[in-house]
């Protein structure tokens, strides 16, 4: 087994609030440059750029899909298809999937509950760019992604499960859109596979998790949230290239694949998870 660095919460330019620079090739290149072995594309309420980012990673690796069976080289990167669902409680829930098809099936159920995007909403919230593997704009997402779906948290977790995904409570230490900010008390029976903590850059007094002075923020938050009895991961929630890999999780497992990730989150066979 080996340690693999992962950043499992990255937005592409499909998310209205993400930079236009967040194209599949740019994300892949930046992730590789930062020494990451695995990333996940988690756009708000959509998954339209997941397959193309997987394709961009395959291009970067020299035409071969980076997967468990293949020989890995320095340029191979596993890209998981994911989604960041906004529930009706305005809780952000990450879904991580074995395939882009599973992510898209999940996204379709979420998108069906969203209002249509308008020219005014695009101006106000930003473009929702559907891209190809080379980063060219091929379309615009027609649904307004910057709002809450009508799925309750329990229904959203169930939806992720139905599509064989892993459900992660997103950035639980953030003062907005987190399980704790929206629901006050951590729901023990929500069915999460993991808790994600967000690593603040610089002082951030609004954080739910108090960060003792002089202590690494992620370590402190990880310790606090470990009490919920779920594995704690740390991700960047990158909306811009410079954020990619700013927070990472080290997974000790056999290979950087979805199946190994699922086993690592359960701590099976000596696999481990640690915020890095």
């Amino acid at each position: 087994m080996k340690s693999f660095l992962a950043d499992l919460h990255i937005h592409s330019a499909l998310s209205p609030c993400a930079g236009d620079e967040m194209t599949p090739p740019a994300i892949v290149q930046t992730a590789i440059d930062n020494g990451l072995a695995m990333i996940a594309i988690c756009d708000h309420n959509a998954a339209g750029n997941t397959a193309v980012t997987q394709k961009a990673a395959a291009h970067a690796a020299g035409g071969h899909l980076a997967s468990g069976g293949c020989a890995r080289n320095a340029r191979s990167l596993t890209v998981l298809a994911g989604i960041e669902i906004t529930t009706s409680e305005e809780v952000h829930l990450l879904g991580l999937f074995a395939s882009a098809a599973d992510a898209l099936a999940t996204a379709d159920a979420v998108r069906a509950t969203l209002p249509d995007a308008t020219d005014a909403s695009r101006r106000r919230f930003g473009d929702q760019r559907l891209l190809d593997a080379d980063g060219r704009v091929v379309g615009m997402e027609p649904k307004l992604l910057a709002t809450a779906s009508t799925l309750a948290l329990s229904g959203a977790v169930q939806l992720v499960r139905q599509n064989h995904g892993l459900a992660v409570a997103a950035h639980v230490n953030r003062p907005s859109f987190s399980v704790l900010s929206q629901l006050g008390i951590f729901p023990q029976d929500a069915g999460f596979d993991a808790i994600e903590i967000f690593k603040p850059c610089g002082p951030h007094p609004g954080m739910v998790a108090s960060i003792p002075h002089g202590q690494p923020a992620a370590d402190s938050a990880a310790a606090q949230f470990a009490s919920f009895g779920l594995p704690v991961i740390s991700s960047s929630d990158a909306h811009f290239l410079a954020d990619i890999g700013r927070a990472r999780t080290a997974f000790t497992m056999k290979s950087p694949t979805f199946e190994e990730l699922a086993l690592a989150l359960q701590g099976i066979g000596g696999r481990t998870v640690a915020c890095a």
Partner: protein
Amino acid sequence: MKLSTVVEKLGLECMTPELKGAADDVTGGYVSDLLSDVLANGPKGGVLITVQVHLNVVAVAVHAEMAAVIFAMDRRPEEPVRKKAVDEGIALYVSSLTAFEIVGRLYEMGLRGLHA
């Protein structure tokens, strides 16, 4: 102020008839949909006005020792939430009015928030 007076004046629908005859006093109010905020600031003996219908509404209101919850805009929690509220002795009401309208009417009736 009597909760029963509020219910009558605002035409609230009671979701927890099992609790009829329980304590009827309400001493203040708070409006928020962020339960972390309610947990920190909900006044003891007060009424919570919210559109949040997650099960934790009950847990948070009980923890803050609030008297009742009014769901605005016809938002209705599911049955497990209602059952939990009955178990915990916290009355739930539904109104078709907006939170703004409910709070305005309660204020007019003399109910006040934290710092009034």
